[in-house]
């Protein structure tokens, strides 16, 4: 099996969908209704390979129990394909600068004499570690299910081949994003998934709303991408490399990568202080853009203009998790900056609460799910921000379960939309459980998982997130004091660095006041916010379920049912219901399986990033927190009961909600006026600037160009008179010219 080494398999995961995408583009027109075949074959192959890789990686992780139990050691494998760019002497930091000081730390780490001149090289390296293997499995398997579903949903669409080419392209980009072992490659594929997202949101580009939503998503993401770009620059200035892994230079010295094992083993390997915090905040900005967190969440609800399978794949299950992945991957960087880490949680918990509040008053089924996605991503950020091993693994756990049940819910909503003739407003249909039994049953499973009802998937992952937050808020209850460990790194680094400005970095950092946020009171507040969000989540999820599937059956006039056995059925075709059933089974089972065996947390803790001392030292024994589970279930139960009171049996929605919430209802329905604020603060000034620029362009620049264009016209007007059409005249002009030259030459020779 020489040919199927893990490195080859790892390359196959992105390669197969890429080939599928290219074949679909080339053959799409010829294949017509079978255009999904190359793309789907590519994604299916990638899914199989990803599962093989997951198994291969799991074999390398040391067992948790038993006689061979040993401390977790990092598991990683690097496959370097080729060198994209390589320069020597790329940059010489001025002596005494923070960058030079940190470099000396890196030199000391690598046992080198030092030297200020840095090379710059971008190897195209793919990595395999537990985090990547998990992400690859999620991406490819959800991608495959969505592709199968799309053959039913997109059937007959004129853009059928284009859709599948884009989906395969997206799977390729996303696999590369999570497999890349270099920050620059991450950036490249970060942009690539953004581009795929743009193309899929604007898939029906003749619809003005879709085109506008695509533009909005792309532009809002630019803000985050800008953060990532600056963050990557700063990372290179600080660490002198962009590689995740350790590399060996041609001289045979080990170059410590940013997340390589050399640096991970060194408690002082990561910059804290102002520089470290700046890097973390820029990465957080990037993550906020891609994962739709406050204040950059505004693009995601509008992204629902795209085809529903694209929403399920990209805007619910996979692409939006890129931000989570980035923060989890950069865990050691964040662990060195407790203030930034706290901010991650604050952003996450606030987003979760705000999005859940907005979600409670939406009437568009897909938009409810969109806000729910934002809210659940907020949960994951809140969990990441705890900076504990439990927090990181819980976030990825929730990412996994969320990918299952949110894809399920979106595909269910798509099934409803498909059968209702494109109508997605929940007020226009109802009681669909009788006419769409499979969709209704699977949607209910997804809703139970999302609401966090035991024993469905969301219950366990949400419980772990609440436990992570609880441990930070009430450290004594858990017997933990990780704050000491978390701050140790930057302090030591600051004392090591002799560069004056860098040594004062910690002081400047305190001036920002971020570190003061990292107090138990903050975490208690975040915990209560998350708990409230859990209740709200259950409320809006079941509000949607009750409005859509219960009460008297009503369908809009545009729906296309088909009679079966005397009564009409609106159920979607088999390619659409099959993925629903698969995802429903996963949503029901995966949480309990992974929680009971503690397999995922143990597996993930072998990720190199999470073996950093600051993270790994916070490991706690696996436990089921009965008190938190009761609180979470109680919150969910309250939410469901309130939703049942309001909406079970199809009661009128608007007036009741308005009476209950009063002015808040207006606030929520207007999405906290985010769009209006951005319009006033960003869009209008930019439009005014564009108007000025357009006027300058049209009148000043174009005017100058036109003026220059008049010169040859005027000259031509004079010369034109000589064009008589008579050959003799032209010949005469030639002779006169030659004579003139001869006379001049003779004159010159004589003189």
């Amino acid at each position, binding site marked *: 099996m020489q040919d199927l080494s893990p490195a080859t398999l790892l390359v196959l995961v992105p390669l197969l969908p890429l080939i599928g995408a290219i074949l679909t583009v080339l053959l799409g027109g010829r294949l017509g209704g079978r255009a999904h075949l190359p793309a789907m074959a590519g994604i299916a192959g990638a899914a199989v390979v990803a599962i093989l890789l997951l198994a291969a990686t799991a074999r390398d992780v040391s067992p948790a129990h038993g006689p061979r139990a040993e401390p977790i050691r990092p598991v990683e494998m690097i496959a370097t394909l080729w060198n994209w760019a390589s320069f020597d002497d790329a940059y010489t930091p001025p002596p005494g600068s923070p960058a030079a000081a940190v470099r000396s730390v890196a030199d000391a780490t690598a046992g080198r004499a030092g030297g200020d001149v840095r090379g710059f090289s971008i190897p195209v390296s793919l990595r395999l570690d537990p985090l990547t293997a998990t992400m690859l499995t999620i991406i490819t398997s959800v991608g495959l299910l969505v592709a199968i579903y799309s053959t039913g949903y997109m059937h007959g669409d004129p853009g059928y081949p284009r859709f599948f080419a884009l989906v395969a392209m997206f799977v390729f980009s996303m696999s590369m994003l999570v497999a890349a072992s270099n920050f620059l490659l991450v950036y490249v594929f970060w942009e690539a998934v953004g581009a795929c997202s743009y193309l899929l949101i604007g898939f029906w580009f003749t619809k003005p709303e879709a085109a506008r939503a695509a533009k909005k998503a792309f532009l809002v993401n630019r803000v985050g991408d800008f953060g990532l770009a600056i963050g990557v620059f700063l990372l290179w200035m600080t660490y002198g490399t962009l590689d995740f892994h350790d590399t060996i230079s041609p001289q045979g010295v080990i170059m410590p990568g940013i997340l390589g094992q050399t640096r991970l083993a060194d408690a002082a390997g990561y910059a804290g202080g102002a520089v470290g915090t700046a890097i973390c905040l820029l990465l957080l900005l990037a993550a906020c853009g891609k994962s739709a967190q406050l204040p950059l969440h505004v693009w995601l609800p509008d992204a629902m203009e795209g085809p529903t399978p694209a929403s399920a794949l990209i805007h619910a299950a996979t692409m939006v998790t890129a931000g989570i992945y980035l923060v989890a991957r950069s865990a050691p960087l964040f662990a060195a900056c407790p203030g930034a880490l706290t901010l991650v949680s604050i952003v996450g918990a606030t987003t979760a609460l705000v999005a859940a509040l907005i979600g409670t008053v939406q009437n568009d089924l897909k938009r409810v799910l969109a806000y729910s996605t934002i809210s659940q991503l907020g949960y994951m950020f809140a969990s990441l921000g705890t900076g504990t091993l439990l927090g990181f693994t819980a976030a990825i756990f929730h990412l996994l379960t969320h990918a299952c049940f949110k894809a399920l819910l979106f595909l269910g909503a798509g099934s409803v939309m498909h059968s209702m003739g494109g109508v997605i407003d929940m007020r226009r249909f109802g009681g669909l459980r009788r006419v769409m039994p499979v969709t209704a049953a699977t949607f209910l499973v997804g809703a139970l998982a999302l609401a966090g009802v035991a024993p469905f998937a969301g219950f366990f992952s949400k419980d772990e997130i609440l436990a992570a937050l609880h441990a930070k808020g009430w450290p004594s209850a858990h017997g933990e004091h990780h704050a000491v460990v978390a701050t140790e790194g930057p302090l030591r680094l600051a004392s090591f660095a002799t560069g004056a400005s860098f040594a004062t970095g910690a002081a400047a950092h305190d001036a920002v006041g971020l570190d003061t946020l990292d107090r138990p009171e903050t975490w208690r507040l975040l915990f209560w916010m998350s708990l409230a969000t859990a209740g709200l989540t259950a409320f809006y999820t079941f509000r949607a379920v009750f409005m859509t599937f219960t009460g008297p059956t009503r369908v809009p006039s545009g729906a296309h049912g088909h009679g079966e056995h005397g009564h009409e059925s609106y159920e979607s075709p088999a390619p659409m219901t099959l993925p629903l059933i698969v995802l429903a089974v996963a949503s029901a089972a995966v949480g309990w399986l992974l929680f009971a065996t503690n397999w995922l947390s143990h597996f993930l803790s072998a990720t190199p990033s999470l073996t950093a001392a600051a993270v790994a030292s916070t490991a706690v024994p696996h436990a089921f927190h009965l008190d938190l589970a009761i609180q979470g279930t109680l919150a969910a139960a309250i939410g469901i009961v309130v939703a049942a009171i309001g909406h079970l049996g199809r009661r009128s929605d608007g007036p009741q909600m308005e009476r209950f919430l009063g002015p808040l209802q207006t606030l929520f329905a207007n999405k906290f006026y985010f769009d209006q604020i951005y319009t006033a603060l960003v869009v209008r000034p930019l439009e005014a600037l564009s108007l000025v620029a357009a006027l300058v362009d049209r009148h000043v620049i174009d005017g100058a160009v036109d003026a220059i264009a008049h010169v040859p016209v005027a000259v031509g007007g004079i010369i*034109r*008179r000589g*064009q*008589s*059409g*008579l*050959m*003799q005249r032209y*010949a*005469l002009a030639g*002779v006169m010219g030659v004579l003139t030259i001869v006379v001049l030459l003779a004159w010159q020779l004589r003189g």
Partner: protein
Amino acid sequence: MNPVQSLAMLQNALTVGAILFSLGLVGILTRRNLIVMFLAAEMMLQGISVSLVAWSRHHGDWGGHVLVIFVLTVAACEAAVALVFVLQAFSRTGRLDAAAWQSLREATVGRTVDRELPAAGAAPPPFPTLTRAGVQPPGGEHAPLEREHV
């Protein structure tokens, strides 16, 4: 041959060349008949060829001779091409007059008329025909045997 003789011969040859060239130039500038213009251009070429041969001989260098042979070869090809153009031009307008093409002038420039051309569509110019040998020419003794002008 002494140098004085050689120089005298060069002068003579160059004079002949210059005369040929000038005649050709005058011909090209004054005549409007395309074939005659072409002949005039050939004459200019021969003038140059004569001076090339003369210089070549004067310096005892064969380069000029060789060049002239090339010029003759190229001129023969060029003559074939030029005559095709002339023939095409004639079949378009029915005239050999270069001024018949003055409609190619700039639109804003007025038409140049020194002598009015025969009206288009008028009877085609009679082609010269060779008299058959040994036969009494038609039209009696006093009939003109050739066109008055070309």
